[in-house]
């Protein structure tokens, strides 16, 4: 499916500065992280539907089976719930699985093993077992994927204790965060976004780790703080750049992990700007946007100069058709309009 052609390529991204690495496509950065992790630690293995097929999970797993063998990089039955449990059980017994999914929608089949088991085994048995497991999926969008193939489910999982949730926005972070996720002793969800898969970026060749739970300023500014992650922060950056000539000076925080959440960077920025816009790739209600908006009202109320705003998806299932998608998904224009309102 050409979900990306035309739609994704039309987005203009910041040109990467090649000082600290090679310019790599996003999936290749993930591929390098997996390669390094498999090479460094024989406990690591990669499983998932089609991870060894010619499509190689958007290219992310290309060549890994050939290099590390069919026992460490393998295809699975179409059976998400059991495979999530198998990954959890293997992780509890000395292995470090990376369980890859084409789409987060399929993880909904495995919520029992993920939420009722993986997230709490360590707690339930008083710290005796650990579940060093990565669950990876690429959020879909566009080309008619529709209600069952486009969902971003970070909001559903945000409240579940014991999980970590990573959402990279650059090839650099995709590699460094994945390496951190694999090295982490907890179940870590890594949600990529399909539209980022077309992005190139500067990626150091060696092993490096981007820490979980640490946000980063993508842009410094004084009028308004935009916080979010993944593709949403991409759009936010573009909107911020567009508004700069109008004299609106936005600060953009890429949270990189939404759980744990970097509250320090949010507070620091809000102390400067006093205005908060939260952006997310998923539904606004009860998810990442809601949590950060509530935090502001709870912890940083006296820093706020005006209402918090959030931009994500409305309380509507994802439509399939192209025209409807245009109305459904936030874009640079809509983000820009809200920023203007907030700074008026």
């Amino acid at each position, binding site marked *: 499916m050409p979900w990306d052609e035309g739609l994704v390529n039309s987005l203009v991204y910041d040109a990467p500065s090649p000082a600290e690495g090679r310019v790599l496509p996003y999936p290749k950065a993930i591929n390098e992280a997996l390669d390094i992790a498999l090479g460094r630690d024989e406990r690591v293995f990669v499983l998932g539907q089609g991870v060894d097929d010619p499509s190689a999970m958007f290219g992310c797993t290309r060549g890994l089976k050939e290099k590390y063998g069919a026992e460490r990089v393998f295809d699975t039955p179409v059976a998400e719930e059991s495979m999530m449990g198998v990954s959890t059980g293997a992780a509890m017994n000395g292995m470090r699985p990376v369980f890859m999914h084409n789409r987060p929608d399929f993880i909904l089949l495995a919520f029992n093993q993920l939420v009722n088991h993986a997230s709490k085994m360590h707690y339930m048995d008083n710290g005796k077992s650990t579940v060093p497991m990565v669950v990876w999926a690429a959020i879909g969008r566009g080309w008619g994927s529709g209600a069952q193939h486009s969902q971003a489910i970070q909001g559903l999982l945000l409240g579940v204790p014991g999980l970590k949730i990573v959402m990279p926005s650059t090839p650099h972070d995709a590699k460094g965060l994945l390496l951190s996720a694999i090295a982490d002793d907890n179940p870590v969800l890594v949600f990529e976004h399909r539209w980022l898969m077309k992005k190139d970026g500067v990626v150091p060749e060696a092993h490096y780790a981007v820490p979980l739970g640490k946000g980063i300023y993508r842009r410094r500014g004084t009028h308004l703080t935009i916080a979010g992650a993944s593709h949403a922060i991409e759009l936010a950056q573009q909107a911020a750049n567009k508004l700069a000539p109008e004299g609106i000076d936005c600060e953009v925080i890429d949270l990189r992990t939404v759980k744990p959440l970097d509250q320090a960077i949010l507070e620091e920025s809000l102390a400067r700007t006093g205005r908060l816009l939260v952006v997310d790739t998923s539904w606004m209600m009860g998810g990442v946007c809601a949590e950060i908006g509530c935090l502001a009202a709870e912890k940083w109320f006296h820093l706020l100069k005006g209402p918090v705003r959030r931009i994500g998806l409305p309380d509507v299932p994802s439509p399939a058709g192209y025209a409807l998608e245009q*109305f459904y998904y936030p874009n640079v224009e809509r983000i820009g309009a809200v920023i203007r309102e907030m700074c008026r």
Partner: protein
Amino acid sequence: MRNYEGKGIQGLGAHDQAFCVELFRRMLRIRRVEEEIERRYHQDQMKTPIHLVIGQEATAVGCCAALRPTDLAYSSHRTHGVYLAKGGDLRAMLSEMHCRANGCAGSRGGSMHLIDFDVGMAGTSAIVAGSVPLATGAALAAKMQRADRVIAVFFGEAATEEGVVSECLNFAALKKLPIVFFCENNFYSVQSPMAPRQAPRELDRWAAAHALPSQRVDGMNVLDVFDAAKAAVARARKGGGPSFIEARVYRYRAHGGAGDDSKTGYRPIAEREAWEKLDPVECFYKVIAKTGLISDPARKTMEQEIQEEMQEAFEHALASADPTEADLYRHVYAVG
């Protein structure tokens, strides 16, 4: 692999001759529609994923021919064939695939969610095995309502890897529900063959172990499919409960999108070529042509009619209006 010709040519059995020609016409129509979708796909007018059924026409046509319009069919992501075989509106289908407001799902579904309640095309799911419990629930409803309604649910062999199918077989057998579980075994899940997915089990016997009648048929042979489906549907209608049918088939094209992707190496090209020799459309044509049920000129007329209907439907779709922003917010909740 069983040979379609070997069996079919020995005669059409007790099958009505006009019915045989009609089965052929339905398969041919699906084939031509699929080919046209494929031909046009690269124009990017159909902004929807596609899962072509070329090579698998006999299963949908054979099974749906055993159903009444009031019976219901449920399908997986690979839904074009079932939709058309069940009598679904071609125009509404193509409008849906062109993301138009007058699509059969108002452009909210796309190609994986073709429905047409008027003819009993009742539901699909883009989630593997997702429609199997829905269909089982429809069968429960039919039984509770004492309705004279049988349900058939189509799914690929990969769906049997999802535990929910085991659950549904148990429940349907337990409640003696009027349902036919129709498994189209094309040996692949996307680009994954059977070997990394299923232990060497026999799917028909696996199903039978849930305490319901189960049988394997040659899915390239529309009459074999029809006969098996007819028996299963009749049993269901009489209150005899569910059945499982494993039909072995082959898809000629890539899992999704246009064209074949065998050259990427996940399956032998020779394998596809061998299956193409058993082609459900052309082999059946030979059978009915040999027995004099159809002539080459008659087929030509048939092809022409299909072409005309199809081109008109494409044009209609292309000329139709897009949904509006207001449409986006409709039907999140049912009101009433």
